[in-house]
């Protein structure tokens, strides 16, 4: 599946096993991207880490 980075418009190809909420990185601008839809494939800028995120 292919789509464009929502930040820099770089073309991205993702595997068929891609899941909703998976985090990808744009190979061009290094933005963290979240899969918000699989069919059709839609990526969005991933949320910034919040204060209570972690292990």
């Amino acid at each position, binding site marked *: 599946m292919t789509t464009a980075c929502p930040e820099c418009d770089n073309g991205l190809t993702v595997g068929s096993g891609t899941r909703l*909420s998976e985090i990808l990185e744009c190979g061009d601008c290094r933005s963290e991207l979240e899969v918000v839809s699989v069919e059709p494939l839609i990526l969005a800028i991933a949320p910034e880490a919040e204060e209570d995120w972690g292990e």
Partner: protein
Amino acid sequence: MNGPIALLASRLRVEEKALLAAFSARGADVVHVDARRLRFPLAEPPPWRFVLNREISATRARYAAASLETQGIGTLNSSHAIATCGDKWLTSTALTAAGVPTPAAALALTPEAALDQIAVMGYPVVLKPLSSSWGRRVSLIRDADAAQAVLEHCAALPAPQAHLIYLQEFVNKPGRDIRVVVVGGRAVGAAYRNADTWRTNVARGATTTSCELHDGLADLAVRAAQAVGAAIAGVDVVEDADGRLLVLEVNSGVEFAGLQRALGDGCNVAGAIADLVLRDAPVPARVAA
């Protein structure tokens, strides 16, 4: 109770993908649930028979676990374990009560009281937010000027909890600490976390290398996980100047990608967690034909 097992997570990281793959390899019916969309009406139990809680937000993770437990749905980790691990002072007190060696620590209820306690503990001393992860806002205080400055910043923060100051003895570790993953009362793997700086969090760029999981280390990690009530735990251990092992903290939402990379095929953390969940989850009731 029927229904699938749920994996609760708002982000599917390497760990969550490995867990889903492990469940799939075991033929288990597991659904991914995005915690950001989750609601818990009092009279409507969710449709899952067990929940593996992998939510990255400590607040959402704790309240989701508490809500699920109230509605009779088993979860790992428990809300008690998440709350204890999510608070450095509660962790220190639980470890101490269980006789698990841990660095000296103190809680000061105001920044002013923290200055008095630092005078007792001496320098250097480590100041940590009560509930932070990935080494965030953890400060190594080397003198009174630095203490004054950091405590003034703490006092200026709006959240009342930020005014509670957790202080911990600085352990001059040898450029590394040890992460041990415990699953179901068994230590399944250990890795060194190596860094050029004093903070050795993988989230801050520390690299991982294999560490021998000898009996003493495994026993210490299992006791630490039991002390905080965590069935699944990432136990952080430091070696002091005399080679003694001390438990720094215990993580209830363990990130294990770095450890798994270091250990390779010799360890299967996701598989161990999946096995534990499948052991603890109730068997679905047969549906009458």
